[in-house]
């Protein structure tokens, strides 16, 4: 039996600064042991525990796509002890990775259906994984129309600008990038994510919606999706909770009798409706 508390060692191969404020960075990691790299099979929407030795461990959603086989990426905002230590790491630093953990998005359910991806702020990380996965040439045919609505406070706060640019050139994705308030030089959409979702009005016909973002965005986006005809069982959300072990043992991330780390982090809105509102 393997010990789930022992991390695999990985090297930071590349660090990408994602935003103007410089508090969101994407870390590209490669496991030191090629076997570990091969064995790290994950689904979109799962997370891993990242160790910065001496600072500790924290759970981070996986931002790369499962199709990216020779590296994994994590997009991290600098907020606490471990994330700050990670931000101070240079390329070449060895860190630890445990995982993947959690259930991930319901990919099987999405196959053969339209997919609506709604994200706000830096919570877009696992949605980026999902979008990248669906758009991969080996997968694209298995999904129908893909609509992405992604909002940030201002253009400088948008993550993955390199992906957004590439996706914007494709005709097999309906990409809607919005910022909260108009600024000179911005030619894209302006407005909060819920309003833009209403404007874009993706059809709920044979569709699944996946929503990640700050609580306020989720609060106002759910009624819009409801108006558009999405039933609660076809809307999926990824919950945020303080976690330590990632395997349902340390006892802090429960919402009712469910552990966000192992029963989630992805829940159907229908499940959340019957769970206590304690997240």
């Amino acid at each position, binding site marked *: 039996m393997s010990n789930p508390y022992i991390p695999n*060692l990985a090297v930071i191969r590349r660090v990408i600064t994602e935003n103007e404020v410089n508090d969101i960075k994407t870390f590209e990691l490669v496991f030191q042991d090629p076997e570990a790299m091969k064995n790290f099979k994950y689904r979109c929407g799962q997370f891993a525990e990242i160790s910065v030795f001496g600072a500790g461990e924290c759970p981070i959603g996986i931002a790369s796509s499962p199709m990216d086989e020779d590296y994994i990426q994590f997009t991290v905002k600098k907020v606490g002890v471990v994330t700050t230590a990670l931000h101070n790491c240079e390329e070449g630093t060895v860190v630890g990775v445990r995982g993947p953990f959690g259930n991930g998005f319901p990919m099987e359910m999405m196959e053969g259906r339209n997919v609506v991806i709604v994200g706000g702020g830096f919570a877009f990380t696992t949605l980026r994984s999902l979008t990248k996965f669906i758009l991969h040439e080996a997968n694209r045919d298995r999904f129908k129309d893909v609509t992405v609505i992604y909002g940030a406070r201002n253009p400088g706060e948008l993550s993955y600008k390199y992906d957004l640019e590439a996706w914007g050139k494709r005709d097999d994705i309906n990409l809607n990038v919005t910022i909260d308030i108009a600024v000179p030089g911005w030619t894209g959409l302006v407005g909060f994510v819920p309003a833009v979702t209403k404007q874009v009005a993706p059809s709920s016909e044979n569709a699944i919606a996946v929503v990640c973002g700050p609580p306020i965005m989720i609060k106002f986006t759910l009624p819009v999706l409801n108006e558009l005809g999405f039933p609660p069982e076809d809307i999926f959300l990824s919950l945020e909770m303080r976690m330590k072990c990632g395997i349902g043992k340390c006892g802090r991330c429960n919402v009712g009798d469910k552990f966000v780390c192992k029963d989630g982090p992805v829940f159907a809105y229908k499940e959340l409706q019957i769970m206590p509102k304690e997240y």
Partner: protein
Amino acid sequence: MKWKVVEKSKMPLLIEELTKEHEVFAPVKKKSLVSFERVSSGNETYLDFQNTKTPPKEVFFPQTEILFTYRVGKKGVEIGEAQAPKRKMVLLGVRPCDARSFVLLDKFFSSGENKDLYYLEKRKNTTTIGLACNHPLSTCFCTSIGGSPFGKEGVDLLLQNINDKYLIETVTEKGEKLIEKLPWLKDAEKADIEKTKRLSEDAEKAIRSKVSVKGVSEKLDRMFDDPVWDHIHQKCLGCGVCTFLCPTCYCFDILDEETEEGKRVRIWDSCQFPCFTLQGSGHNPRPSGKERMRQRIMHKFNYSVKNFGENFCVGCGRCVRECPVNLDIRETVEKISTRQV
């Protein structure tokens, strides 16, 4: 099932023999505090207690435990020894309520895809010797919650105190194997065995606290938003002693100590602390004592029932005895069970 007998004066000898092949943990008295410690001789052990101040869970799930060591150098990171070498242990003098907590913790730590080997290995390598409870305390309520003063759940052998001797009842094969190593133990006499039955009945009768947990889990299903939580937590200080001393509480934190040659440790944590659920963004899903008290009660009497089919409480009464503001879990459960919802 076998019954052996040992005179109290011979207990130090018995313990001494056990220490030859095992690490022995037993109650030790330091001033007024009785807790489980590693003993190297029979004379250190103290068995005339009602119950220990701290629960024996710390033998299998220490307050601070090294998960692994690491060394950060110029050439990268090395991860060292993950666990102490396997050693055979004997845990002696556990009250039946506390022994029952092991049965609950076993279910928890072995659940799911990822088992907790740190706890499970120690449990597997340990022979647990219980100590039946002749004189329960006024705060005891094991009989209300599935246990009894002479209960055998979670023990391999059960010591029963009769005047100047202990009867030793074998409960499991593991216990029997340990007994085989002590061939000098005499067989118990029938009259003494009869006497333990009477003692057991008397002890049960001595437990006056009755708590009705029946139906509490179902009620709690409908009580998440009940006004009862607005009142129960009011006098709580949030000190967390109820969770630290609870034999079934298992929540922990994981952190790193030292930077270059360091260790990753897990330490006990408590759902009663504000930081327990505080997120990086500053958001806290359990911002006040109300939500934290509700979590503790819900976890013990509802969530655990759903996940493991058990109330995570053994009725030891430590949280009642040690609470600095006299919060009483029996009263809380009573309030819930009498509420019309």
